[in-house]
């Protein structure tokens, strides 16, 4: 079929069954936008900033499990998008990001809106392409989708010069992807798996260390089955919230810098870590030389580069965690005695009793943790929960009752403020029947506030709940604790009227100072099905606790903080 490069992009997206593209047009990508105008195969959602296009595609991908697609123009369009691309790279989210580029004849001449896009995206994409001939487009786009979703998923960037989108060439999308140099290992080594099972059967205090890779691999059901059969307790990383049901008695909690005391103590006392799709991030391990000193480590990961990167694995298993668990479960049934760990369960129950996760009420002031718990009580399983980055994010990870994978959408690795709202738009687009809540802070929300317009235009009624403490709270917390209360550039006392702000875009807004008002506002916002901001005035100096101070050991947590 002889068609233009721009038409090829459309044909490829339709062949990949893409249902929505988040994007923003501009000079270099206009040929493609002209074809978008003419087609009916997918919806295009016009965001109001290119960064939001990528975050929306991330949110869409996280909830749907499909590859998210974002489209932007060259130069500033692309550089605006790079934060989103880097975010997706850090959190292994499958995306295809298509950018326009100046025509090949101008590439390298410092042309208007020219930037070396593939040079910039190289270190923060799984792979990238500069397409110099339209006859390569079918292969490149097909590879891009395949690379994005296979192996360890990630963003793939395709940069297409304007003359290439105008060029007529042959288009054949039927050929299978054949990349000789790329063959991800899916099936784990059976001998290694058998050894791992023997190690579990011999361990006294094994611990499941569950990571976000389980969500990517759609393996949560198998993890639940494995833990039930073996009765091995589990800790979740930030990225893995929802893999186990919050009420599962085997789930201790989240571990790491703001994990629970019991989770971190379990990690410090275990004699066998069973790491599934987790990467021993520095926010998880704390001080490395003190991390899990008594433990042997089984590490299952699709990415060989993640294994023994931070800590040495005794039983490395490269493979898709779902496939590996399928092999492990029948072996576990035969060889592992689930009553073997009773003493270990008692130890953990004691840790839990000693310092349970909690917070104290203080008069009528709303505590931010209460807001998170309350949303959980009122909406629970029926809501998908996005967040921005900071204190509110950690409180949500700690206190929201997650009950299923893909319910939790947050920027983990890169920690991108401004992620939550556009991501929640993508979430709503992917799962319109559920309420899409963005729990945010008074700092973060302003970083992509322009997306109120997108929400109104495309009828994506996200409910933004601001835990408003008039501070960049997390930085303020560190300044209080470690910088002798010098609150440098973190006081956000000067604020917009969030209610009027939302209304000015056509949304609704609530200013909330009591618990009763909050309940009423949330109920009203969910019912009205219009984009909303609920601006909740919370206790100003609340800290996220417990806490492992940066560089500290997991077992040496700060459980409370008294102002000096």
């Amino acid at each position, binding site marked *: 079929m002889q068609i233009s490069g721009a038409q090829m992009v459309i044909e490829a997206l339709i062949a990949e069954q893409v249902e929505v593209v988040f994007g923003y047009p501009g000079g270099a990508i206009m040929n493609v936008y002209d074809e978008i105008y003419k087609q009916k195969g997918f919806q295009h959602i016009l965001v109001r900033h290119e960064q939001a296009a990528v975050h929306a595609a991330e949110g869409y991908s996280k909830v749907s499990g499909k590859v998210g697609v974002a489209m932007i123009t060259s130069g500033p369009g692309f550089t605006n998008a790079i934060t989103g691309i880097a975010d997706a790279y850090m959190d292994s989210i499958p995306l295809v990001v298509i950018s326009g580029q100046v025509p090949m004849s101008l590439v390298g001449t410092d042309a208007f809106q020219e930037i070396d896009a*593939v*040079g910039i995206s*190289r*270190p923060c994409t*799984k*792979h990238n392409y*500069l397409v110099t001939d339209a006859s390569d487009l079918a292969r490149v786009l097909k590879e891009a989708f395949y*690379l994005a979703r296979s192996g360890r998923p990630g963003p793939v960037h395709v940069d297409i010069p304007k003359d290439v989108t105008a060029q007529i060439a042959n288009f054949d999308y039927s050929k299978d992807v054949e*990349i*000789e*140099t*790329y063959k991800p290992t899916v099936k784990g080594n059976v001998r290694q798996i058998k050894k791992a099972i023997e190690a579990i059967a011999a361990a006294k205090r094994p611990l499941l260390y569950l990571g976000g890779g389980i969500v990517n691999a759609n393996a949560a059901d198998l993890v639940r089955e494995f833990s039930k059969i073996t009765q091995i307790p589990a800790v979740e990383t930030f990225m893995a919230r929802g893999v186990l049901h919050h009420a599962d008695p085997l789930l201790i909690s989240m571990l790491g810098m703001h994990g629970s005391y019991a989770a971190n103590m379990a990690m410090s006392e275990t004699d066998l870590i069973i790491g599934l799709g987790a990467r021993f991030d520095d926010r998880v391990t704390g001080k490395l030389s003190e991390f899990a000193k008594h433990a042997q480590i089984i590490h299952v990961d699709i*990415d*060989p*580069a993640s294994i*023994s*990167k931070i800590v040495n694995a005794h039983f490395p298993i490269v493979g898709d965690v779902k496939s590996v668990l399928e092999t492990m479960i029948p072996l576990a049934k035969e060889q592992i005695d689930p009553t073997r760990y009773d003493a270990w369960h008692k130890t953990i129950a004691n840790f839990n009793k000693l310092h349970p996760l909690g917070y104290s009420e203080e008069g009528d002031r709303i505590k931010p943790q209460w807001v998170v718990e309350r949303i959980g009580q009122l909406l629970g399983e029926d809501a998908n929960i996005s967040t921005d980055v900071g204190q509110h994010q950690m409180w949500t990870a700690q206190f929201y009752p997650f009950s299923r994978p893909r319910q939790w959408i947050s920027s983990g690795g890169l920690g991108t403020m401004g992620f939550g709202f556009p991501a929640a738009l993508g979430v709503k687009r992917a799962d319109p029947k559920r309420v899409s809540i963005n729990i945010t802070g008074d700092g973060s929300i302003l970083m992509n506030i322009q997306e109120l317009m997108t929400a109104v235009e495309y009828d994506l009624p996200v409910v933004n709940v601001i835990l408003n403490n008039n501070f960049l709270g997390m930085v303020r917390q560190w300044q209080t604790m470690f910088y002798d209360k010098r609150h440098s550039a973190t006081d956000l006392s000067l604020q917009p009227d969030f209610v009027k702000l939302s209304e000015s875009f056509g949304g609704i807004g609530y200013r909330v100072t009591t618990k009763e008002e909050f309940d009423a506002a949330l109920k009203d916002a969910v019912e009205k099905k219009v984009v909303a901001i609920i601006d909740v005035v919370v206790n100003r100096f609340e800290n996220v606790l417990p806490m492992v101070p940066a560089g500290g050991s997991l077992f040496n947590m700060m459980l409370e903080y008294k102002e000096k």
Partner: protein
Amino acid sequence: MEEARRVISVIVLNEASVLSRISGLFAGRGYNIDSLTVAPIPDSKYSRITIVTAGSVRVIEQIIKQLHKLIPVLKVYEHADLVEKEMAMVKIPLGESISDVEALAHAYNGKIVNVSSDTLIVMVADEPHRVGHFLEAIKRFHPKEIVRSGSVALER
């Protein structure tokens, strides 16, 4: 941790930007490249890149894994038994004794490859540490310019 010199041989798809992917991987992590050579493998769509670097066992292991992770990388040889050679060329003023230079070059698998009106160029090809010795020895002939090729290596 003990830093050791390592030679890594990488077979990659011969396509635009592959070299920047490799060098970027080193640069972004602060790993050093002592030398790097690249040339196409005849009658194939691949190139061979030979990288000499230094690092602890752990760093090298991580480099190898990260190299494998790059999409256009086919194979990485590191602990393999490698035969390694390097070439160097040195420009020397013609005032020096040609036969002395010739004799020295000969000891290091080399010879005089060019003589112009006022300089000569001598070339050697040997193990990298021996090339180093040669470059020490040649100093007394007052070299004006020196170029080293960087290592090439092949599994035994």
